[in-house]
């Protein structure tokens, strides 16, 4: 996908038909914004990302600050001073939800960043060299795909010191297989295309081939799979935290807010409904955007919902 020319040109053809010529990026954006659900998802995610980045300035209270005198051992319902109520320790749930967005979004992005890098690496090697390398790497991917990933992540996590960075790395390590398969597939498709043969014949090095000629043409499915990978990572993190094996205690993530809320399930809905709704909306938004991107990138999918 070339980003060179973003402006649209009007070309006058001989028989006076006006044809809009667009750059690839412009065309993809045109296709993407036609999908209104994807557009809505994107708007939500942009806002959420800003909230996450500036979360420390947006919280009305310190999310870790306890007010035991106010709570007196039981969660207090929403009121004008605490719009999402407080938990049993008197911590402001609204501030916790805001600061948790930083953790949840952060884990999602970094974990997928890691798995995408591994996936691109494995997929490039397999697709570029083929043969034995390909065989071995793809068998490893098959094996990883049949592993009980969730349980392994839980286990590995329980060995490590509870930290948000470990969670990012562990989720990343177990999530690269799809990207690797996609990249490999694109590489295999490209192998037989003329410009690749041309680049080979002028003696471009292997590294140059991969970086300059193969990867830029294989990046579209990677972007889609990363976009769809982020919500999975967010769900994984929240599941881990929900089981008490994820983001460590005083720090708030949507998952461990649910973990806290679980003990007050019957009497304090405000402890567990908002974080659950936030996770759901965020994940839906990412999935809408991913779906929109897939359709926008894929010419055969155009016009489909």
């Amino acid at each position, binding site marked *: 996908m070339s980003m060179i020319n973003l402006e649209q040109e009007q070309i006058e053809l001989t028989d006076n038909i006006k044809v809009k010529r667009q750059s690839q990026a412009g065309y993809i954006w045109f296709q993407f914004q036609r999908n209104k659900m994807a557009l809505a998802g994107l708007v939500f995610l942009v806002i959420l990302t800003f909230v996450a980045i500036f979360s420390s300035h947006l919280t009305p209270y310190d999310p870790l600050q306890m007010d035991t005198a106010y709570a007196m051992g039981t969660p207090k319902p929403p009121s004008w001073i605490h719009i999402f109520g407080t938990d049993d320790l008197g911590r402001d749930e609204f501030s916790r939800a805001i600061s948790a967005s930083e953790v949840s979004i952060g884990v999602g992005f970094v974990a997928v960043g890691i798995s995408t890098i591994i996936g691109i690496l494995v997929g490039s090697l397999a697709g570029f060299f083929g043969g034995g390398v390909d065989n071995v790497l793809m068998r490893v991917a098959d094996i990883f795909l049949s592993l*009980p990933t*969730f349980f392994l992540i*839980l286990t*590995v996590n329980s060995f490590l010191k509870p930290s948000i960075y470990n969670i990012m790395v562990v989720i990343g390590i177990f999530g690269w297989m799809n990207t690797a398969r996609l990249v490999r597939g694109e590489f295999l498709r490209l192998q037989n295309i003329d410009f690749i043969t041309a680049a080979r014949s002028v003696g471009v090095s292997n590294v140059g081939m991969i970086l300059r000629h193969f990867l830029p043409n294989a990046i579209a499915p990677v972007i889609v799979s990363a976009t769809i990978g982020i919500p999975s990572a967010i769900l994984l993190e929240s599941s881990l935290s929900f089981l008490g094996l994820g983001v460590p205690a005083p720090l708030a993530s949507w998952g461990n807010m649910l973990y806290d*809320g679980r003990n007050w*399930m019957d009497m304090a809905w405000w402890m567990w409904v908002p974080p659950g709704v936030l996770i759901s909306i965020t994940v839906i938004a990412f999935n809408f955007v991913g*779906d929109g991107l897939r359709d926008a990138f894929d010419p055969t999918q155009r016009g489909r*919902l």
Partner: protein
Amino acid sequence: MTRYLIRRLLQMIPLLLFISLLSFMIAELSPGDPVMMYVNPGKKPPTAEQLQQLRITFGYDKPVYVRYFIWLGNIFQGNWGYSSRTHAPVMDEINARLPNTLLLGSASFLLTIILAIPIGVLSAVKRYSFLDYVTTFGAFVGISIPIFWFAMVLIVIFSTNLGWLPSVGMQTLGKNLTGFARVWDVARHLILPTIALSITSVGAWSRYQRSNMLEVLNQDYIRTARGKGMNERTVIWTHAFRNSLIPMITLLGLSLPDLINGAFITESVFGWPGMGRLGIQAITTRDYPLVMAVTMFSALLVVVGNLIADVLYTAVDPRIRQG
């Protein structure tokens, strides 16, 4: 067909060996001295000599690779070691829990098929209708909502507030029901966990069925059927529907890992006495022999499930059989 089956079974061997190596490594890499779990923490700490003695007794003085093969040999003889928490044989614990997980898994599987396939077919046939938009949105919600949160919502609505269904366990405690009453009791306990576990797969499967159906409806033979004046119902249900089901078999294999991952969470929310809950308990109590066994068995379920899906696929689609 037999040759294909044999080849597939042989391919499973390296996979299972790798998984066994991995779960052995889990126990190997786990923090802490493995012999300490045989030491009674209430008594005074053992001397270095006693510890060494324990190490020799349990074979921890041997090199890692030797221990791996000893462990593997034991597994082949059905000896999976002993739980460090209850000291019961690991196999007994798994045997007690695995059927419950399979029950929950099959129930969820059934519910998914019953809901997702008709939804997918309908939204494909009535493409771009109001119904299609509603089910599409619903499917996105289904795949996006966290299972455990959905489970909490279900519990609060149907158990706490309406009081229709039990929310914890598999049977009513204290009542030793027998016969039909017992089946009914288990079925009532099964409803909420099954719905919670199915939400993701209903979303995913209905989308998949929709695109399969659309694909088939675009084929020439469907146009032929319509062209010769066949009524629409026969075209859809006799001609299109049956072929649209073939790719679903692949999904059966592909969605097994998700089903098992989901079972770990669902079982621990609902206190369902299955392998998933056993596994989570094993992790939190650092019961590594049990963790290893749960890892192996979950992987085995996925591998066997994939094998069944592949064999079914071959049986249904003659084009694959030749290759």
